[in-house]
Structures are given as C-alpha cells and as structure tokens.
C-alpha cells in the first residue's frame, strides 16, 4: 500500500513536471530556444491563481484567469525578447531568457512582497481513501485529472484538427509550411500561448498543494524542466511526458529511501546523468 501511495505521489509530481516541461519542449521544438524564463510564467500562474481565488472564491475561475493572462504574457515574452533575436545564435536568446527570469523573480518580490501569498480559504482540503490504506488528497486527485484532461485535449488538437496539423507542419519544416499557406507567425504565438498556459495551470495546482506562492518558487522548475526535456530527448513531446513521469516516481521513492544520501534535485540529476551515459539522445530523442 505504501508503495502504491509513493507511486501515486510520483505520478502527481510527474504530472506537474509534465505541465511545466511541455511548454519548454514546445518552444524548443519550434524555435530551438531554451526558454528558461518559462519558470517565471509558472510562478505568475501561481500568484494569479491565489489572488483570483482569494478575490472571487472560485478555483475554476482562477485557473481560467491564470491560463489566459499567463498565456498572453508568454506571447508578449516571445514578441519582446525572442522574436528580435531569432536570427542570432540560440545562446543569445538563452542569455535573454535567463535575464528575463532573474528580473521576473525580483519583480514578483517587489510587487507581491517577499513573504509569499496563501489562499485565505484553501479549496479542496482533505482527502479520501480510495482503497483501505491508500490515501489520496483532493488536490492531488485534481492534479492527475486536470493533467490527463489537458494532455488529451492537446493531443486531440494536435492530431485531429487543422490547427494541430499546421502547428506540426511548422515545427517540422517552417518554409514548407509557409508555402502551404500556414501563418507561421500565428503558429508561434499559439505555441507560446499554450505552453505558457500549461505552466500557469501547474502554478495554480502547486499553489493549491502547498498553500504558498513565493517569488522564488520558479527557481527549481527553471533548471529541472531543462533537465526533463534533455532527459526525454530535446524536441520530443512524448519523451518529455515520459521523462516527467519517470522523474516524479524516482524522486518519490528516492527521497524516502536514499534521501539521507542524495536530496531530491541530486537524485533527479543523477538519474539524468545515468540515462545520458547510455542514451545521449535522451529517452525518446532521435539522434
């Protein structure tokens, strides 16, 4: 029973990682840019989630508001920071991204204060026993359900709609896509919007589980999401999802059984190193 619980905890953590890392993969796949500032959008999503829930009492509204606002901010980030740098080598955009992230963290501290924010009436407290001895919190159940929902919707859009096909075409071969009349500019905006909105959902969910949003809450995701997309294989969405889940489970068991030797991050990166030694292209990456 304990092992089942630890597995579920790993899946919950993995789902959150997936929501964050997907945005990063989407951007990398399209533009070959490592969008470190993505973690700042995660933090912003968390803040909006708490603020809107405290104002209106509705978590659902908060999630929606966070997705929309952060999606737009993500697009703004692209337009202001990345679009002008597209013709330059990718490490320039990386530097810009890191700078954006650091600035954002400080902005959060200046605007929202260093103490962090909490829900005044935290929604979805408590949990339930699925089967005897196996306990799951409502918040954790929401993470799993919401992640599955979002990923299925995205998968369907990507595979079965005109929009999805245009997007995939642009990722594979932008010039050809343009030749077929796809507006690659719009595809890029959409890409950033969706990726950022996903990070926002992750932010609201993490805020729910912890009842705390802080200016620095994006600092761990900022590098861990990078590790995840490398682990999964740069540019591979399935790889990112797989890597997120595996990492979540490894951290879950690892913090309990080898926690006195290695902390959570050390475990994650240790695992990354081991995988890369045998498969330098990542789990599902193509050489």
């Amino acid at each position, binding site marked *: 029973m304990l092992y089942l619980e630890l597995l579920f*905890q790993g899946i919950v*953590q993995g789902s959150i990682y997936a929501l964050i890392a997907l945005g990063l993969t989407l951007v990398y796949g399209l533009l070959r840019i490592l969008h470190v500032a993505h973690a700042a959008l995660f933090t912003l999503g968390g803040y909006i989630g708490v603020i809107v829930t405290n104002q209106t009492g509705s978590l659902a509204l908060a999630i929606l508001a966070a997705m929309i606002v952060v999606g737009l901010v993500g697009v703004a980030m692209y337009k202001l920071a990345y679009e002008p740098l597209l013709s330059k080598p990718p490490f320039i955009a990386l530097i810009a991204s890191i700078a954006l992230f650091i600035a954002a963290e400080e902005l959060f501290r200046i605007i929202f204060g260093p103490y962090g924010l909490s829900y005044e009436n935290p929604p979805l407290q408590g949990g339930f026993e699925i089967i005897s001895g196996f306990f799951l919190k409502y918040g954790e159940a929401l993470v799993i359900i919401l992640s599955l929902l979002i990923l299925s919707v995205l998968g369907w859009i990507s595979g079965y709609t005109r929009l999805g096909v245009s997007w995939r075409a642009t990722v594979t071969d932008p010039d050809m896509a343009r030749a077929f009349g796809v507006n690659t500019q719009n595809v890029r905006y959409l890409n950033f919007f969706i990726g950022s909105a996903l990070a926002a959902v992750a932010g609201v969910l993490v805020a729910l589980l912890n*009842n705390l949003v802080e200016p620095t809450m994006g600092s761990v995701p900022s590098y861990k999401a990078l590790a995840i997309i490398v682990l999964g294989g740069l540019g591979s969405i399935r790889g990112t999802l797989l890597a997120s889940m595996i990492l979540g489970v490894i951290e879950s068991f690892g913090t309990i059984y080898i*926690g006195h030797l290695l902390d*959570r991050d050390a475990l994650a990166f240790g695992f990354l190193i081991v995988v890369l030694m045998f498969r330098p292209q990542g789990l599902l990456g193509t050489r």
Partner: protein
Amino acid sequence: MTMKIGILGAILGVSLVAASAQAGTIKIGFNVPLTGFAAADGLSAKTGAELAVEQINGAGGVKGDMLELVIYDDQASPKEAVPIAQKLIEKDEVVAGVSGSYSGSTRAAAGIFQEAGVPYISAYAIHPDITRAGNFVFRTSFVGEVQGRAGAKLIGESLGLKRVAIITLKNDFGQALAAGFKEAASSFGIEILSEYEYSIKDRQFGPIVSKVRADKPDVIYASGYFFTAGPLVSQLRAGGIDVPIIGQEGYDSQKFIEIAGAASEGTIITTSLDRDSSVAETQDFIKAFEAKSGQKADMVAASAHTAIKVLAEALQSSGASDRAAIRDAIAQTNLTASTGQISFNKLGEVQKSVQVQIVKDGQWHHHSVIDDAELLSPPSE
C-alpha cells in the same frame, strides 16, 4: 566687499556651530537577506533591528551619539557575506557588526570579523561553529544543539510521547537541531522510528507524508522555516496524520499559521519569543514592532532587536572608540531583552530558558517553559 566678507563669515560661523552641535554617529554593520529565498525573514530582521535603533536614538542615543545601521543584502549566501563583511570593516569602518542572516552567511562573515578584531553578534543563526570563530563573536539565540535537546525533553518528558518520526531540513539549521535532539533522545525514553530529510527548496512532501503515515509515530519532530514548515504541516494534516507536530523557532512567524491555516492549530514549537509574556521588554517589543511594520512580531525580528539592544548597552559602558573594549563590554552583558535574559559564557553563547509556544485559535500562545540549566547549557569551547 564688506558684504562678501560678512556673508562668508556668517556661513563659516554657522557651519562651525552646526558642526559642533552635530552629534556623532556610531555605525553598526548589519548583514541580512533582503533578496532571494530568505527575503521574508530578512525583512523581519531588518525591521526588528531598525526598531531597536529608532528606540535607542529616540531615547538620546548612546551617550548622545546616534546609532546608524549600515545594511547590506547578503542573500543568505556565504559568497555574498564575505565581501560584505570586508566592506563593513574596511570601507564603512563599523564599530561592530550584527548578523540578521542565516547560519551559512553568518559563519562566513564571523571569521572575517574575528580576524579584524571587530565584535560580531549573531542574532538568530544557530550553527555552533559561528561562535567558535573566536572571542569577538557572540550569539544572542540558542545554539542549535541546545534547542534540539530542549525538544527532546519537551517530547519525552513534558508531553510523555515516545515514538518519534523526525523530518529534518538538510542544512546547518535543521541538522544542528536534529543532532541535539538525537543526542538527548535516549535520556528521555524516546524511540526514533525514522528520520527523513528534505532540502530547503522542497515544498512538496507527498512521499514523506505517505511514509510517515505508514510509520505510525506518536509524535513528529520536524525542522524547517515557516515557508517549508507551513506546507509540510498542512500536507501532513491533509494526509490524515493527526499526531502532535513539534517544531522549532524556524516556524516562529504568523506566516506559518497563514500558510498552514487550520492545520497549524496545535503545532508546538521551541523558541525564544513568548507572546503571552508578562515581561515588559517582550510586550513592549511586540506592540512596537506591530505598530512599526503592520506585521505580527516573530522570533527573527525579536532576535535582531535583542542583538542591537545588547550592542547598544555594551557601547553605553565601553564607548565607541576601542573595539576590544566593546568586545569586553559585550562579554559582560546582563540584559533583559524581548527574547529573554541575555548573558554570555566564555564562548559567547547565551544561556536562557527555552520558550515553548503553541498555535491556539490562529495565534501563537504560551505553552510552557523549559528551564533545565544542565540540559540547556551551551558548549563553552
């Protein structure tokens, strides 16, 4: 021509008079985390220290001279603390320093101050090596091991609970507390079922909650700061664990109660600030801090306030010109401050009672006091 000489003379005259009427300022160095992960505690500590300076200056300063805090942001990082310590000593020429920061940075800075022969007081950083830097370094709060031992007595004797699961924050602070706790555990009949560690960046404790529930302890001894303890306690309770949770001064902030919400009810901590204290210094500090900052007082602010008060008291008797004399005066301290009766042993460690507070109706309240002089005696070398 006469006019010009007249005006020049008047200006010179006025500035001479002004200069002689100008009180001297005594510069006190203050390193504190104002940005980064510890910014919340840093802001509290800074406000506590500023309050002390305002109160002292308002009462006439130290022998007519006004205190001035020279504040630098060390981000709770040893890398930042070292150049800051050097700057305070060489450029700002402070008469003494106070650390409003965590153990990592305080330890690094203490060495610099000791070498330069400038007194340094650690307000709330608990790592034992800080005072071992030398005889110029003092500490106004409990050293980590002492508080850990007090926790063992609280759990084993006062509360009579024996089977403990320990959750330790993996840094100087948490590990010092756990070491003290484990050292004293057997003498109070405590059986340690398991120990789990987490890093200061963790906020998600799902796996630990599941495992602790499987361990079925009578009580949990968990170290952390309010921004880790808040989520931890909230998740433990939400995970269906209802045994008592015992923490330490890292929890000591209204923010802990805000974050953990209803889950914080009944949490017990060892600390140095008694909200229900009948001691005038403590109550005055609590009221003044709330009036100044709009936030509820916490241990970090009270400790910084105490450290400045100790320094000012020493300056009162030693004067501000000879740093060795200031050091000697600090060593002779016997002062009632908001965090207790302050006097130092030969290592510069304080010996005072441990306050035990409990969360009741969403506020910190007095629970008990731990007064065992032998148990609480700090190391003397």
